[in-house]
């Protein structure tokens, strides 16, 4: 029992630390690309703390208050169901009682709970943002899960532990053995991280900040916290599935950072797409690639 508690706290703390450092790095990276100095690498931590210590927070009814709590609970549940380390009793959380499809669905629980809060605020701009978010989700989820399904078919399991165990060395990484699956899911994965070409939903100048429009003070702080933790959970999930997982914390940080760097590099380079362009893109390029890889790796007898 005590083990579970310490483990859970370690996972939550680690996700938070990695989250704000990664985002701080992202802001630095972005600034350097734009030839600026950029903020401190801890800037996201400062922002988050400032919001958590605001002295005033407005709420629009009980559902509005509980929305951020639901999204936070969803994010922490996701974190606790992703195994962070391979062959270790630490940083496992409750991942033994979950699987890949569950994690992918858990990623969506929180935002949907928060959508209720946005709706109950009565701000039409927020609801517009939610609809955009759900539309984008519709676009990205198909190729994302198809890419993961290719891995599940390859290993005949949905358990993240089993898939990690099947990738003992570089030659057995799914990135190497099933590169098509990686290509199919990587762009939707970036969109699920709200990275730049696909960030129309919550971008500050789009429909007045999108779903977050009415959130202020400490509730906004909670939303920021969960976003950073969720990002790390997603990165770890992909590192587990395609980069063979990690046996030490340093390895984990290196692998997730590599994935994050890829996301950051793409998102600093490409301009934002409109919602329907995003969906159309996902249904043409990554999904088309997905169909090709299904035909190539599953339908034909050589596979």
């Amino acid at each position, binding site marked *: 029992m005590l083990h579970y508690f310490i483990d859970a706290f370690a996972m939550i703390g680690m996700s938070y630390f990695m989250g704000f450092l990664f985002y701080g790095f992202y802001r630095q990276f972005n600034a350097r690309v734009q030839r600026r100095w950029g903020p401190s690498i801890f800037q996201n931590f400062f922002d988050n703390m400032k919001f958590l210590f605001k002295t005033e927070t407005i709420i629009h009814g009980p559902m509005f208050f509980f929305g951020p709590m639901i999204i936070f609970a969803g994010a922490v549940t996701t974190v606790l169901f992703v195994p962070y380390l391979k062959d270790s009793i630490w940083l496992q959380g409750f991942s033994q009682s979950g699987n890949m499809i569950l994690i992918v669905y858990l990623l969506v629980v929180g935002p*949907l709970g928060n959508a209720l809060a946005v709706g109950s605020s*009565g701000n039409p701009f927020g609801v517009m943002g939610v609809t955009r978010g759900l539309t984008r989700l519709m676009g990205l989820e198909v190729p994302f899960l198809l890419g993961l399904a290719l891995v599940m078919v390859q290993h005949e399991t949905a358990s993240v532990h089993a898939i990690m165990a099947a990738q003992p060395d570089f030659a057995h990484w799914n990135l190497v053995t099933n590169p098509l699956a990686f290509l199919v899911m990587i762009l939707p994965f970036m969109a699920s991280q709200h990275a730049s070409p696909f960030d129309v939903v919550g971008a500050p100048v789009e429909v007045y900040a999108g779903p977050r429009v009415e959130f202020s003070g400490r509730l906004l702080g909670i939303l920021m916290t969960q976003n950073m933790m969720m990002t790390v959970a997603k990165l770890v999930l992909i590192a587990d599935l395609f980069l063979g997982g990690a046996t030490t914390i340093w390895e984990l940080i290196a692998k997730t950072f590599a994935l994050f760097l890829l996301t950051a590099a793409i998102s600093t380079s490409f301009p934002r797409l409109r919602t329907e362009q995003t969906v159309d893109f996902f249904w043409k390029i990554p999904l088309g690639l997905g169909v090709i890889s299904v035909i190539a790796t599953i339908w034909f007898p050589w596979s």
Partner: protein
Amino acid sequence: MLKLLFLSLALTPAATLFTWNGAVAWPLFDGITLLFDLTPLAAFFMALLAIGAPFVALPMLRGKSDEPTYALYAVLLLGMQLLLLAGDFIGFFIGWEMMTWSSYLLLLRSPRIDLEGAQSYILFNLASAFLLLAGMLFLYSITDDFRIQAIDGLLTPDKWALFTLFGLAFLIKVGALPLHLWVPRSYDQAPDVFSAFLSALMSKMGIYGLMLLPLLFPDGLSEISGRFLNGPVAGYVLAWIGVITSIIATFKAIAQEDMKRLLAYSSIAQVGYIVTALGVGSSLAIGGALFQALVHTLVKLLLFITIAGIILQTGHRRFTDLGQLISRMPISFFGVLIGIIGLAGMPPLPGFAAKYLMYIGLIDAHWLLLLAALILSSTASFVYCYKLIYGPFLGHANSPEAKIATEAPWHYLVPQILLMGMLVALGIFPGWAIEVLIDPVLIGLGMTPIGAPAWSVLATSYGGYDGIAVMGVFATIFVLITALFFLGRGRMHRATSSYDLSFCGEVPTAATPLHYGAGMGRELRRVPLIGWILRHTTINFYSGLMHQTQATAGMIGTLYGSNPQVWILFAVLIFALTLTVQMLTGA
């Protein structure tokens, strides 16, 4: 008194379920014997009926007693029990017809029914019944037997004929595209509570029929024309029908502006998933289909009864006329909330278990393109789920009635609360549903049972999950973060006006259009695929088909000109062709 009698009548399916033992054979006339038996498969659907019937009956008790409705409802229940108990196609057909006609008469008692709705309901259902009749007579012509059992040594064309006839009959009942026209109309126009029965229970009879279909062949659907990857070819066709139905119905649901029509399209979509899973036919997929049938029954009962309560209290059924009912109808809000979580298949509730089993079934069959299509429709369903809860409950009140509405009467609330409890319990204990409800059916069908190591665990060969762990972790974190939030420093205050919104510095008033209920999903039309789907309607498809048929007929008609020489030429040519074919085939 009459009401009590009616309520006890509504409990008859439960009574049948618990007291039935042994088979009954009733010799009708020479050579024909009616068989009645409660197979495990029928028992599963009988259980659904046993749960649903009293829940639908309870809201019907409200107000002045309506004897014809009660009588018709009793006949309907009798017909459905007959259908489920039947061991041969005669009993099945009698039950099917009783169900069709009594539900039609019930439908006619709605004040909102129009000619188009009534006609389409009865025409499509009669077509279904006649296809069923044709199928069973065809079966009798080959086997001299009406019993529902596996038949050896059928020819491939015969198999396809049976599959098509029965398949079409049941697909009409489940509302597969393009045979779904009657569904949105009748679910929309039926009495508000009766819609729950139509969607939750009667559509399941089509599913029951589709599940009987593989029983006619010794090796299931694979027998018809072989296998594709890890599943039957015939099932692949069926699965695509199901998944295309669910995709199109989902987008249609998003575009609806009426709550009941939205739910009607969502029923088509959800039942489409079941058809897809039935097509796969493996034990995982059949388990998923049964689970989805169970969840869909509970969810649709809950949603339709809740929506009926809202319509009763406000008199409005369109998203544009409602809003902000969350504080006035809190229990109904939770009803719809739990309902849409189940509908969307979100993890803590059993909808996820059903989706999980279906996904795993498709992955196991290696049918990944179908999986992608299923995910598309299941993700798109989030939009209409959100619309369903935002429109009536959140945002701003848009009509005088919505501003003064009160909570629905207890007749509506009792089923809602019980159904919510059932859904949450099933979400925590998916393994219980597998072990108690689904595995007996799978064993009865001669398949490998899925099994569950513990009541809370859903386990498959592909891995599983623990309902208690998911729900427990989520609830613990939720409570902890809420407590921490309250412990933290900082004042929270509630906005005193619902117009205290960030609105670009402007001050919105009651005249500002702030409710986004009806417009939601309108911008989806800009996505090319969705726009294409929403621009085309099934009625246009049918009228296009009609025009094409007429054009073809006209073209063929021109061949039969007034010149007799042409006729003679045709006659000679056909005669020559027949002779050639006969000579070549050596007949």
